[in-house]
C-alpha cells in the first residue's frame, strides 16, 4: 500500500472550560467511551509510530489540550521526532510562563480560537468568559516568537463580524486567520437550525474576505473554510478517506477524521490494542471507504470523483443515514433535498433563530441517555 498519512490530530482530552455550541467533539464526549485517557507513555508511542508511518504534521487538540499537565513532555517528544507541532487551544487561563515552557520544549505553532470579534459576543458564544485570556495569550504568543493562527468558527450569530475578526488578527500580527464556516457534525449538527447562516449573510461575509485579501496580500493569510451546504459539489473531505489524515481520541480510538466516531456502522480500533500502522493499513474504519471501489452512483461514473472523493462519509451517515452514500450536499445526490429543506427552514425563520444547546458535560450525558 503506498498511501501514507501526513497528518495526525491528537485529541488529548475532551475536558474543556469552553462550551461552544458547534464543538466538533462527539455529543457523548462525557460518556464511558472517552473516559480513560491515554497516558504520557501511550501518547509518546503513538507519536513515534505516526512518524514512522510518514506523519509530518501533528495537531495537539482537545477539548482543551493545555489541561494535560504532561503537555510539555508530549511536545518535547514530538519535536524530537521532527514533527511540526501545532497547539490548538482556547487559551483559557494560558500563561506566558506555560507558553514559554512549550516554546522551549519545541512547539512550532500556536492556534488560538476566538468566538467573536469583541468580548461580549465571544464570551456569549463560548459560554465562558474567556476573551480577555485569549487577547493576552495572542500577545504572549507573538512576544515569544511563535507563528500565530487565529481561528474563528463562523455561523449566523457572528458572520456579521468577519471584518472585525480579520482586523483583530491583523492588529495582533497573526500569520493566518482561519474563518471556518460551521460544518454540521457533533454539537453543530444538534444546533444546526440555530447556527446555519442565511445565504445573504454568507454572501456579504465573502465579499469582505475578498476585499480584505486584496488589501492584506501575504501579510495575513485569510483561510475561508467553505460552507458546504451552500455549494453545488461536496468538499474533498480530509483529502479523501484514509489517504493522509488520522485522529486519535483521548481514550485511544483511531478515526479517519475527528467526526468519524459517530458512524455506528464502522468498527474502530484502539492504540491500546493495536499498532498505529496496522490500524492505518488494515482496520475496518480506515479501509472501508479508501479508494473508489465502495462508491455508488452518481459518484462511480462521475468525473469529479478523483477531485472530491465522493465528499464526506460522516455527512452521508448523519444526513442520509448511510455512510456509503454520495455526500448529500452534492447537487447530484438523491438526498440533496434534505439539505435544501434545512436551508429553507433557516431562510424562513430568519427573524426567530432556534435556541442553542451549549457543549457541556450535563448536556452531553442527557443527550447520550436519549440516544
Amino acid at each position: 500500500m503506498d498511501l501514507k498519512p501526513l497528518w495526525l490530530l491528537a485529541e488529548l482530552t475532551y475536558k474543556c472550560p469552553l462550551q461552544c455550541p458547534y464543538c466538533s467533539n462527539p455529543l457523548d464526549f462525557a460518556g464511558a467511551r472517552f473516559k480513560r485517557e491515554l497516558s504520557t507513555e501511550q501518547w509518546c508511542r503513538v507519536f513515534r509510530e505516526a512518524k514512522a508511518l510518514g506523519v509530518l504534521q501533528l495537531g495537539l487538540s482537545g477539548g482543551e489540550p493545555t489541561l494535560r499537565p504532561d503537555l510539555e513532555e508530549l511536545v518535547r517528544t514530538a519535536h524530537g521526532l521532527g514533527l511540526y507541532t501545532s497547539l490548538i487551544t482556547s487559551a483559557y487561563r494560558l500563561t506566558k510562563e506555560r507558553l514559554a515552557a512549550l516554546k522551549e520544549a519545541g512547539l512550532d505553532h500556536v492556534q488560538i480560537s476566538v468566538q467573536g470579534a469583541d468580548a461580549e459576543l465571544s464570551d456569549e458564544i463560548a459560554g465562558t468568559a474567556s476573551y480577555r485570556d485569549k487577547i493576552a495569550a495572542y500577545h504572549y504568543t507573538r512576544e515569544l516568537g511563535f507563528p500565530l493562527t487565529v481561528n474563528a468558527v463562523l455561523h449566523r450569530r457572528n458572520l456579521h463580524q468577519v471584518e472585525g475578526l480579520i482586523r483583530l488578527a491583523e492588529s495582533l500580527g497573526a500569520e493566518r486567520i482561519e474563518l471556518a464556516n460551521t460544518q454540521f457534525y457533533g454539537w453543530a449538527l444538534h444546533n444546526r437550525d440555530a447556527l446555519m447562516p442565511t445565504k445573504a449573510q454568507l454572501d456579504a461575509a465573502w465579499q469582505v474576505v475578498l476585499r480584505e485579501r486584496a488589501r492584506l496580500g501575504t501579510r495575513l493569510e485569510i483561510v475561508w473554510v467553505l460552507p458546504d451546504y451552500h455549494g453545488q459539489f461536496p468538499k474533498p473531505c480530509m483529502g479523501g478517506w484514509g489517504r493522509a489524515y488520522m485522529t486519535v481520541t483521548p481514550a485511544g480510538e483511531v478515526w479517519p477524521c475527528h467526526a468519524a466516531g459517530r458512524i455506528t456502522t464502522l468498527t474502530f480500533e484502539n492504540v491500546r490494542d493495536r499498532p498505529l500502522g496496522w490500524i492505518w493499513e488494515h482496520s475496518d474504519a480506515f479501509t472501508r471507504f479508501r479508494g473508489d471501489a465502495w462508491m455508488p452512483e452518481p459518484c462511480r461514473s462521475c468525473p469529479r470523483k478523483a477531485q472530491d472523493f465522493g465528499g464526506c462519509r460522516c455527512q452521508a451517515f448523519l444526513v442520509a443515514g448511510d455512510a456509503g452514500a454520495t455526500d448529500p450536499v452534492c447537487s447530484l445526490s438523491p438526498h440533496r433535498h434534505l439539505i435544501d429543506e434545512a436551508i429553507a427552514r433557516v431562510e424562513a425563520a430568519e427573524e426567530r433563530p432556534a435556541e442553542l444547546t451549549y457543549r457541556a458535560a450535563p448536556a452531553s450525558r442527557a443527550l447520550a441517555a436519549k440516544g
Partner: protein
Amino acid sequence: MSSTGAVTVPRLHPKARLQHDDVRGRDVLLYPEGLVALNATGVAILELCDGTRSLAEIVATLERLYATGGLERDVATFLEGLAAKGLVTYGP
C-alpha cells in the same frame, strides 16, 4: 526584479522549518497546516537563506557549488514562489 534585487537578503520565515522526510525519501519545508516538497537544489538554496547572504551571494555560491553559470533567474523564481506563500521574506 524590484523585490529581489542583488542587494536584498532573502530569509526563510521563522514559521517554516526544513525537515527530512525519511519515509518518503525527500526533504520538505513544513509550516502551519502545510508543506512543500523540495528537491536537492531547493534545499541547497534554502540552506543559504540564513539572513546574512544577499541573493547575489547565494547565486554565486550555488554557481560555484554546481560549477555552472546563469542560475540567477532559477533561484529568484524559486524564492519568489515561496515568498508568495509567505515562507520567504526579503530584507536589506
